[in-house]
């Protein structure tokens, strides 16, 4: 409120006061007026203009006094001996005029109230004033209660101390709103502009990529079909660049496109064409371009660099790639491990053994394809190293590789690992025993027939179905009466039926459990048994 004058502060206060107390004030005044005519008289004497109210003095006299003040009296033609004054707007004026009437006439003179040009009695005046006050059309001033100040405040138009050219800016809330709207508008304009910029840049890149692709087709075809591998080896980088548009030699996008095209061809071609493509990649020093991508802060660019190194078999990149094998970004880490497995020549699979993050199924599939490729090349990959990893998912991955690649020579190791393995590992090892019908591990399988774990039990029963003995049958027959779970019962009955159908009929057709008899009947039905 600094900067406001006392008068402005007072007006502000009075305005608020009027707002808060106007209605009760009006009602109380109206009640007073009804009860006290003297107060009405004093109200009229304040000299306030009351809309529609005028006064006339009427005097009954046969003579017209020769006084100057009486000049304003007129003789009533209709009633001889009656005089009436001019219409007076103020009660004070009427009272003053009444005082000037000579004493002999004064007793016969009275003030008549004219409401809207019609003579009215005091009761009508009271009611009229009451209505005015009640409807806040008139505020009587009462000395001492601030009523006059309130009237002043009401009558004085507000003028701000600081004249701001735009009235809208005088409101703080409006300023905040305007500021927000302008900020929103500017942000929208900026974002739309940025979006167009990004889209146009992307579009331009796409157009340039297509153009560069078309520029690559013929030079690459020429190099691949017109020259032998030995001839290409003798070519200098300058000589090879001469096949391509010279102006693009330093263009990063052109190099990117070239690498992608070379990789695409490398995937789709075989024979010495692969060697030619890799030679071209190295001769043009595109390997440096791939290395530079590894320094990027964007994960997709780093991953692209790793893919290029992997596809082009850049063996010397192994130490650099190894740094990314524990990267927190899934894509970088996955690609780095795959690349390292491919180019490092490390058959102990240490990069996998020391993986701290759990391996996803997608990662396992990628690594498996590389390990299978290396195995098919005749390399002895030490898969058993994976069994000693601290990472359970790596150990399970190792057991899966044994199964998928048919590494039966590792089954003995699995048998040793089995007793101390976790539940998930046991299930995976049991699958290996099942696939390879590894009867040496039957004792371990028998132990897990007594497990409370449903999945492990079902896995063990399935193995017994394949490699089970008479002892296994006895154990299962004994166990079946205690089983409650449907899947466990079903697996057990199926296994027993596969191992010894005669025994099943003999032992179980008279089972006390209705569920077992029903399931058995279902399994023995030639039509329903496969449903």
């Amino acid at each position, binding site marked *: 409120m600094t900067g406001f004058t006392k008068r402005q502060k007072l007006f502000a206060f009075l305005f608020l006061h009027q707002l808060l107390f106007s209605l009760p004030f009006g009602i109380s005044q109206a009640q007073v007026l009804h009860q006290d005519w003297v107060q009405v008289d004093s109200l009229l004497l304040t000299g306030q203009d009351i809309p529609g109210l005028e006064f006339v003095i009427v005097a009954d006299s046969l003579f017209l006094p020769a006084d100057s003040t009486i000049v304003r009296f007129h003789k009533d033609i209709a009633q001889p001996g009656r005089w009436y004054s001019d219409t007076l707007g103020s009660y004070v004026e009427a009272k003053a005029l009444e005082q000037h009437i000579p004493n002999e006439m004064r007793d016969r003179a009275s003030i008549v109230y004219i409401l809207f040009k019609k003579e009215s009695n005091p009761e009508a005046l009271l009611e009229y004033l009451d209505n005015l006050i009640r409807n806040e059309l008139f505020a009587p001033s009462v000395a001492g209660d601030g009523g006059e100040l309130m009237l002043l405040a009401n009558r004085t138009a507000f003028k701000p101390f600081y004249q701001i050219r735009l009235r809208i800016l005088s409101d703080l809330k409006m300023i905040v709103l305007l500021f927000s709207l302008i900020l929103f508008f500017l942000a929208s304009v900026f974002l739309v502009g940025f979006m167009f910029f990004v889209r146009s840049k992307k579009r331009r890149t796409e157009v340039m990529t297509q153009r560069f692709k078309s520029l*690559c087709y013929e030079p690459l075809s020429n190099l691949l*079909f017109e020259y032998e591998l030995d001839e290409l080896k003798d070519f200098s980088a300058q000589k090879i660049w001469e096949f391509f548009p010279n102006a693009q030699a330093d263009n990063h996008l052109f190099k990117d496109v070239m690498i992608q095209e070379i990789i695409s*061809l490398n995937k*789709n071609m075989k024979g010495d064409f692969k060697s030619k493509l890799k030679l071209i990649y190295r001769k043009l020093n595109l390997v440096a371009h791939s290395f530079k991508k590894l320094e990027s802060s964007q994960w997709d660019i780093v991953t692209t660099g790793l893919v290029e190194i992997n596809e082009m078999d850049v063996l010397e990149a192994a130490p650099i790639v190894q740094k990314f094998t524990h990267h927190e970004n899934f894509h970088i880490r996955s690609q780095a491990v795959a690349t390292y497995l491919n180019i490092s020549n490390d058959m102990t699979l240490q990069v996998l053994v020391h993986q701290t993050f759990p391996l996803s199924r997608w990662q396992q599939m990628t690594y498996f394809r590389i390990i299978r490729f290396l195995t098919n090349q005749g390399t002895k990959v030490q898969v058993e190293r994976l069994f000693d990893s601290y990472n359970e998912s790596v150990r399970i991955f190792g057991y899966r590789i044994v199964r998928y690649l048919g590494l039966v020579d590792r089954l003995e190791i699995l048998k040793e690992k089995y007793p101390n393995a976790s539940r998930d590992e046991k299930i995976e090892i049991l699958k290996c025993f099942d696939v390879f019908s590894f009867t040496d591990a039957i004792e371990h399988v028998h132990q897990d027939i007594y497990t409370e774990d449903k999945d492990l039990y079902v896995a063990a029963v399935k193995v017994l179905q394949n490699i089970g003995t008479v002892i296994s049958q006895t154990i299962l027959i004994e166990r079946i009466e205690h089983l409650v779970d449907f899947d466990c019962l079903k697996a057990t009955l199926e296994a027993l039926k596969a191992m010894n159908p005669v025994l099943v009929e003999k032992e179980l057709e008279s089972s006390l459990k209705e569920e077992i008899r029903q399931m058995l009947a279902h399994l023995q039905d030639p039509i329903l048994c496969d449903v």
Partner: protein
Amino acid sequence: MKNILVIEDDKLISSLVQFRLKKEGYSVTMVEDGISGMDAIDTQEADLIITDVMIPYKNGIEIINHARKVNPKIPIIVLSSLGEEESTVMEAFNLGVSDFVPKPFNPNELAVRVRRLINN
């Protein structure tokens, strides 16, 4: 000059095939999708068709069927990856394609196969 129709959506591969076959003295027409391929079969008198199995708009099998209707004796070579569309490739064989070249392939080997089929 013998005319060979190549239906392949990978421009780089079709360009290489075109380059290699032109060296052999053939005229090569390239199309990138199935609809253009069918149009080319109708309008051009190709002596041999090389087609991929996975191409835009039309399946390679539809192309082979259409080609067989237009010219039952035209040699057709399927150029595709076995791993990707094994069932489709088997179906292509059942439709009586002349040869199958799996990707990755050797363009020189493809040229030899083309020459053998054209000469026969």
